[in-house]
């Protein structure tokens, strides 16, 4: 398990390795990068892994739920995490990738009443919920309460195949939507690791671009 005793590389060694891949100028922006991930299921856990791996320095993980055995078909957890809060399990994993990240966790259910306090410090929010009403609540809440922030949301990633139907669409300067926008989950149309990861990759890739370039032109 990811205890401090397992850390065998210094902050400087890890920085050098990341800079070798990304260049120092880009790594500096990633180190200063800050994003919240709301919902730590298939979308959120995969997006968080991607952002942690490239060294996005400040991550804010939010979920109220515990890891269930049925989550392992698509979410970035292991059997040893079943029963743990997702915030604790994911933080543990991300610190195994990079123990020098600043990771804040909030084990709470997001509602209209706590959006203002919960997301005050996050310039970019990754909406990674499961239930459509919750997705709409967070997107509307962020855009109404924080007009300066950017929300990256996802809709439509159930099933398998049709990778290229999943896309990133800019709705406004502050609202991006990833997914095919039609494939909802339901009986006979389950969420599966490969396609959920494609969509989570869209969200994480856009957030990387927002952090590195500060703006995005999608064609």
């Amino acid at each position, binding site marked *: 398990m990811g205890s401090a005793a397992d850390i065998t590389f210094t902050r400087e060694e890890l920085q050098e390795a990341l800079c070798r891949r990304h260049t120092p100028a880009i790594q500096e922006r990633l180190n200063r990068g800050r994003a919240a991930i709301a*919902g730590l*299921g*298939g*979308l*959120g856990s995969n997006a968080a892994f991607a952002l942690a791996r490239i060294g996005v320095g400040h991550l804010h993980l939010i979920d109220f739920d515990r890891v269930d055995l049925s989550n392992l078909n698509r979410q970035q957890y292991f059997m040893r995490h079943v029963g743990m809060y997702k915030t604790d399990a994911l933080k543990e994993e991300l610190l195994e990738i990079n123990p020098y990240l600043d990771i804040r966790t909030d084990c709470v259910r997001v509602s209209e009443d706590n959006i203002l306090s919960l997301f005050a410090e996050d310039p970019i929010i990754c909406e*990674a*919920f*499961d*239930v*459509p*009403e919750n*997705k*709409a609540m967070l*997107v*509307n809440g962020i*855009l*109404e309460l924080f007009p300066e922030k950017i929300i990256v*949301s*996802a*809709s*439509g*990633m*159930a099933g398998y195949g049709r990778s290229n139907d999943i896309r990133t669409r800019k*709705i*406004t*300067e502050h*609202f991006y*939507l990833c997914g095919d*926008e*039609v*494939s*909802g*989950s*339901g009986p006979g149309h389950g*969420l599966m690791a490969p396609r*959920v990861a494609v969509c989570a990759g869209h969200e994480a890739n856009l957030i990387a671009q927002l952090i590195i370039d500060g703006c995005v032109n999608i064609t």
Partner: protein
Amino acid sequence: MIRVNGKDRILEEGTTLLALLEQEGWQTGRIAVEKNGEIIPKRQYGDTILHSGDVLEVVGFVGGG
């Protein structure tokens, strides 16, 4: 004439956003609405009168994450 999700629509004068959404079968709990580049707060759907030339984007969310 207004534009909704890329398609032209003819509306009666004075139609509200809420009336249009209900007419089109949108579930208001599962959407976000952008009008002329701005997000319309949910509580204003009933008071928002649509005018000729308005460009609307209704984003519907489906389940899964």
